[in-house]
């Protein structure tokens, strides 16, 4: 199941919201959380019920390890080598979690690499990749590390007793919901248990808060619009471009890279906005994950604005444990490269992803080392250079293979003259915008206007998180949000154009 589907919007989400608040209203607080958990499992297992075995197994295994750490903490004076045992358990647990992730996500990449290097013919397997496995794994690794440090449920302040319920909340239920909660299951953000558990147990969050709900509705509607109206539209041009890369002239190739920069931002941030919106409607909060990243003046700033929770996770659980920048500049550079290579690999099982991560790491190091020089350069120039770098580094991200990468780079730098391909222009048809302009505007003009509007949204307007803080309850906003919601929902399905090849 996905957020941008009729089933989710028209049936699943209304049931979740109504069911959750109804159960809380009759003071069945644990049942309400159990309800959320069950609905999350339903969401997760909708297309492939076999996914659930992975999810349940992962939750149970990691929770047992947490309990083990708890017992070991209490028995520390009884056990010799107590600390060593805890460390071994931690390492084994992290290795098991990583191994599971490696198997599902990287086994075939590993086989392909062996085949390439040693000219073997090992057969790749048809492995069903569990949804959100990277997010689930990282989240649980963070939890286990904190459990090792005795930072999980350390005292009653981490889960507040409801005044109406004598018993504390089931920790297992809280943990299961922490891992499986559907709004952030497939695409994040990566949340920490310290942020999550208090939200689930706070009394005041059991009742619907209409300002939160309004905020959530706004974010969900606009996030859906970002994904369906903008990202999916530009995505068609990107797909065509990468499938026909050998036909592209320089102008078209550059446009395809720009289109992908637009697609990936609106798609990913739109999804995050929808996730945040769903949580707000449930009177819960998620951390901010995108903060106008294309307005960044340096690559350092970009990574503080793009996928913020991933940066936070990698900083806290990888960069700092490696030593961060506390062990000299050489070690800082090595640590930075390790973090970015891991980030690249986390995004996808291909050398182009690793290269993308490495390129960002390298540029990050250059920026840190050259900060004094960068400060002297006008901000607009810094911004332009950063945007240029990000735009072209996305080519590595999207290519998926070195062959496609080579072809796309050739298309960009071949300096072949010619305008933007008609095929690409014909695909940039933003819903309603196209219906209004399409009848009298040539394709290229419609594309140009679409780009201008997107540019204004990206560089001159406040992002949704900022706008949501200042949401005005007016007739105008009612009409505009409803229209965005309607256009988005009605754009979930279209009519196929059947290409008449011969018959």
């Amino acid at each position, binding site marked *: 199941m996905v957020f941008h589907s*009729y*089933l989710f919007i*028209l049936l699943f989400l209304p049931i979740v919201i109504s069911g959750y608040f109804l159960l809380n209203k009759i003071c069945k607080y644990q049942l309400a959380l159990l309800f959320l958990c069950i609905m999350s499992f339903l969401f997760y297992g909708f297309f492939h019920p076999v996914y659930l075995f992975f999810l349940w197994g992962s939750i149970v295994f990691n929770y047992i390890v947490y309990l083990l750490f708890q017992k070991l903490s209490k028995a520390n004076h009884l056990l010799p080598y107590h600390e060593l045992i805890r460390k071994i358990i931690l390492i084994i647990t992290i290795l098991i979690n990583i191994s599971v992730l490696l198997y599902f996500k990287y086994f075939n990449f590993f086989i392909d690499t062996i085949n390439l290097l040693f000219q073997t013919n090992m057969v790749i397997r048809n492995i069903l990749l569990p949804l959100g496995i990277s997010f689930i794994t990282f989240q649980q690794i963070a939890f286990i590390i904190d459990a090792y440090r005795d930072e999980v449920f350390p005292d009653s302040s981490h889960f507040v007793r409801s005044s109406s319920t004598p018993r504390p909340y089931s920790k297992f239920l809280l943990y299961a919901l922490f891992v499986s909660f559907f709004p952030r299951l497939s695409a994040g953000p990566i949340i920490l248990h310290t942020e999550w558990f208090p939200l689930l147990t706070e009394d005041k969050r059991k009742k619907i*808060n*209409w*300002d*939160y*709900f*309004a*905020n959530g*509705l706004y974010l969900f*509607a606009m996030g859906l619009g970002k994904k369906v109206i903008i990202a999916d539209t530009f995505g068609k041009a990107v797909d065509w471009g990468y499938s026909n890369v050998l036909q592209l002239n320089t102008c078209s190739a550059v446009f395809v890279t720009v289109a992908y920069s637009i697609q990936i931002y609106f798609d990913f941030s739109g999804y995050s906005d929808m996730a945040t919106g769903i949580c707000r409607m449930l009177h819960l909060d998620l951390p901010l994950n995108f903060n106008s990243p294309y307005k960044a003046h340096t690559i350092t700033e970009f990574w503080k604005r793009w996928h913020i929770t991933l940066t936070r996770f990698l900083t806290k659980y990888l960069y700092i444990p490696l030593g961060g920048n506390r062990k000299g500049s050489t070690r800082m550079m090595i640590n930075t490269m390790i973090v970015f290579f891991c980030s690249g690999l986390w995004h996808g099982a291909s050398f182009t992803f690793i290269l993308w991560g490495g390129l960002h790491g390298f540029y990050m190091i250059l920026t840190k080392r050259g900060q004094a020089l960068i400060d002297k350069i006008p901000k607009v120039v810094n911004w332009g250079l950063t945007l240029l770098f990000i735009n072209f580094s996305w080519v590595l991200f999207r290519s998926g293979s070195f062959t496609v990468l080579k072809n796309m780079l050739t298309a960009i730098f071949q300096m072949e003259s010619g305008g933007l391909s008609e095929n690409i222009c014909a695909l940039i048809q933003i*819903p309603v915008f196209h*219906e209004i302009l399409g009848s009298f505007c040539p394709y290229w003009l419609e594309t140009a206007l679409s780009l201008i509007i997107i540019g204004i949204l990206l560089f001159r307007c406040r992002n949704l998180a900022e706008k949501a803080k200042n949401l005005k*309850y*007016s007739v105008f*906003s*009612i*009409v505009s*949000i*409803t229209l965005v*919601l*309607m*256009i988005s*929902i*009605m*754009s*979930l*399905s*279209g*009519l*196929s154009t*059947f290409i*008449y*090849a*011969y*018959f």
Partner: protein
Amino acid sequence: MSGRKWSLSILLFYTGLLLLVGGSVIIIDPFFHFHAPLEGVSYQQGSDQYINDGIAKHFEYNAVITGSSMSQGFETSEADALFGVKSVNLTYLGEGFKKTGDIVDVAISYHPEIKLVIRSIDPLWFVSDVDWQGHEDYPEYLYDDNIWNDTDYLFNREVFANEVIPVIIRTAQGLPAARFDQYAYRLSGGKEAVLAKYERPEKMNTIPDEAETQEYFNMLERNLQGNVIHTIKTNPEIEFYLFLPPYSICWWDDLHQRGVEIMKRRLAMEEYVIEKLLLYENVRLFSFFNHYSLICDLNNYVDSVHYASTVSSDILRWMKNGQYELTEENYQEYIREITTFYSNYDYDSIFQ
């Protein structure tokens, strides 16, 4: 205004709009997914991939015209007048035997009173996998019985904007409704137009590989049995008027250029198909490949295979009159005759 009022206003407004849009799609139903066309509503000609299933299920008829684009030029009014039936056009552009066979099965399941099926049996699709379809993106939500995915139809922006609204406007303007057989877009062509589109291959003398030929015949057998003969066998009370569309002399030239043996293999396949189909009493089989004045005159065509609309009318009339019918008694002579003709024809004269 409070957050509560704002939120509830949006939810109410959006629910109302959804009901309005969904309701209008259900009522107008441009693809006839829920019901037959309403009296007085000026429907427009839709795409066959979208309307055929609805027509098959909800229209009133007792005869079906189906096949590929080779049957799309047939007008139901002409077929009705000639055969004394009430027919519908359920043809599919760019499709082989599977899709056209499936729609006949659907039609029969919803209308057991069907007494006539007119269907093209295209030699171009002889050798196809039994499950092969020309297009992948069929709107399955229209073809299946799953009501839950009807949301793809009810809340579809393009359906609403391009199908429902125009129908409402046409009705308000008092325009007549479409006949749903207006696929006859190939009104004109001619020799020059045909030759401009035809790319003559280099002359080769390819000798067909035996194993490949056997594989082709195996595929043909599966395709024919699964997608054509199965329906004929299970419906002995229905009369099947099957015809081999008369491709132009350019099509034969293409075969001939690839090699005489390749052409003979194609003819052997045709003979095989004829033999298989003539086993059934409820089949009337026709071929016009021996109508040489038709085939050799490119002014009857718009490209190397598609004939002009006037030829479609002629085909219907010939079938009704029993002209060019193949029987157990005459098919072998027919094969011999067309083999001789097409093996020895002066193909270079086409380009003079």
